[in-house]
């Protein structure tokens, strides 16, 4: 019986044959990442650090897109998991002196635990949509409050500095990611791996199941899918990825502050995903890049101007391309590359 169960589980990740649009996706993504790989050749130190931050934040964006785009559950406080990952990583490497790999795993486990605990009570109770969003917002607020309260441990308002860089031992030799080049490739490879993994997972039948639950949960239940379990798993995986992003961020930046767990970052990540195109995976990464770059340019002129510009920009996107920029691109290039094939008349 377990052999059968295992076979069915593996079948979830069985891949459909590659279609034209999949090949295009891979080509475009491949080209983009290749370009980014050679970016250090002309980018200066500052630009490289910005690109690195964007790449790591894009992992955070992917984590939310996986949840929101595929299952429809909107986590309004997703920065809670990012911040947990960041702080656990920081504390374990700085104060407890743990090795990078161990600390990384613990950081992700910490995010996962919080997600499992809160998710279980919410999801199995049938909480969805707006109500789910509001409760998860509370997570970010509570998280921030806890950090500020235990200031002697967490550094309170100011946060912590001198967080050690990532250090991995490989074949006896130890490698520290502490210079621009290695950090750049660390961020690039991490983002690429997360993107490809999510893409593969969602291409398989598992993606169909999540989409079905999003579409018509009652029907999915009536066909035998344990929808609550699927949603909880998705929520937890999303939290793990957010925690990973947080941990990477703090070990590359060297500092950690309560902003990383607070509601402002939680809102920003939603904007990245919405602007880029919910459910498209690549869209949120692009959205992340655009909005972060915009913030830097605007903030260098005036810090108070940024929230206004962000608001206006968001409203514009809602009117011009409510599905996000990715869908705008889709409609501009025509349905040739992005639809499933030539549409026939609906009658037999």
């Amino acid at each position, binding site marked *: 019986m377990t052999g*059968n*169960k295992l*076979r*069915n589980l*593996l*079948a*979830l990740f*069985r891949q459909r044959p590659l279609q034209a649009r999949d090949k295009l996706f891979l080509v475009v993504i491949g080209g983009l990442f290749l370009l980014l790989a050679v970016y250090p050749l002309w980018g200066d130190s500052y630009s490289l650090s910005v690109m690195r931050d964007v790449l790591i934040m894009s992992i955070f964006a992917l984590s939310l897109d996986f949840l929101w785009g595929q299952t429809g559950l909107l986590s309004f406080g997703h920065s809670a998991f990012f911040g947990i990952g960041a702080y656990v990583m920081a504390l374990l490497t700085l104060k407890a002196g743990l090795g990078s790999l161990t600390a990384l795993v613990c950081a992700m486990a910490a995010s996962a635990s919080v997600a499992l605990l809160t998710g279980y009570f919410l999801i199995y109770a049938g909480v969805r949509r707006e109500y789910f969003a509001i409760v998860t917002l509370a997570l970010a607020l509570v998280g921030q409050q806890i950090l500020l309260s235990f200031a002697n441990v967490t550094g309170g308002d100011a946060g912590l500095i001198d967080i050690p860089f990532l250090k991995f031992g490989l074949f006896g030799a130890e490698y520290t990611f502490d210079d621009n080049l290695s950090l750049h490739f660390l961020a690039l490879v991490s983002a690429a791996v997360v993107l490809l993994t999510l893409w593969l997972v969602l291409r398989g*039948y598992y993606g*169909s*199941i999540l*989409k*079905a639950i999003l*579409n*018509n949960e*009652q*029907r*999915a*239940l*009536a*066909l*035998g*899918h*344990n*929808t609550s379990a699927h949603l909880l798993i998705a929520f937890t995986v999303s939290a793990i990825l957010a925690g990973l992003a947080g941990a990477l961020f703090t070990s590359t930046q060297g500092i950690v502050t309560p902003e990383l767990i607070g509601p402002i970052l939680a809102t920003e990540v939603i904007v990245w995903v919405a602007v880029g195109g919910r459910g498209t995976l690549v869209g949120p990464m692009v959205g992340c890049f655009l909005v972060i770059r915009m913030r830097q340019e605007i903030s260098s002129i005036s810090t108070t101007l940024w929230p206004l510009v962000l608001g206006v920009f968001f409203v514009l996107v809602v009117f011009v391309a409510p599905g996000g920029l990715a869908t705008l691109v889709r409609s501009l290039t025509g349905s040739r590359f992005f639809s*499933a*094939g*030539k*549409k*026939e008349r*609906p*009658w*037999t």
Partner: protein
Amino acid sequence: MSQVLLSAKGLKMSFGGVKAVNHVDLDLAGDELLCIIGPNGAGKTTLLNLFTGILRPQAGAISFAGRAMVGRPLYEYARRGIIRKFQVPSVFSEMSIKQNLEVALLGVGAGGAEAGAVDEILELIGLRSQADQTMADELAHGQKQWLEIGMALICRPKVLLLDEPASGMTKEETRKLAEMLLDLDHLSTIVIEHDMAFVRTLNSRTVVMHNGEIIRDDQFSVIEQDPLVGDIYLGRQ
């Protein structure tokens, strides 16, 4: 006569003072085809909701293959072989026809084995030519019915519960559906229907519900002649 597969005893369900199901006893054997007819509001769909776990009876018990079913999680009903078609076609609107069927297969844990089953069902429900391109939402009402029936059949149910499967179907499609149901082996079927031509073709054991109770349980040919049934439901023929 095969063994009793699905058994309901003393089922009671009220909504705010209205007795939707009022002490219903029903036994269904394996391999049996049963029709439930009755006026709108008689409690037929409510009964089906009780059989599939969507509603929890306020009194009474339901057992399937000897197991008590009341209180079990919804998805377990399908996994044990109780599959349902809803009164208003309920499919995955933003997924293609083929994907709809695949999700149905995956629900009962058959995703690993049955790749050919999808093609077979597509052929049966007559939607093969548009399977990949057409979103379920774009289908006409009757085609959605067929899709949902296909999704139910692909799960290889032990008990198939169809709530008004013929609504929105042409006369020919209705005939095809009746033939298909009569051909099905190794499963029990409960059909709720208002299309008397369809029910007449099935000519099976028929149960008449009225005000939440079962008032008649007999072959359709007998029920059809019953004056009470004519009064409350069939009208003048």
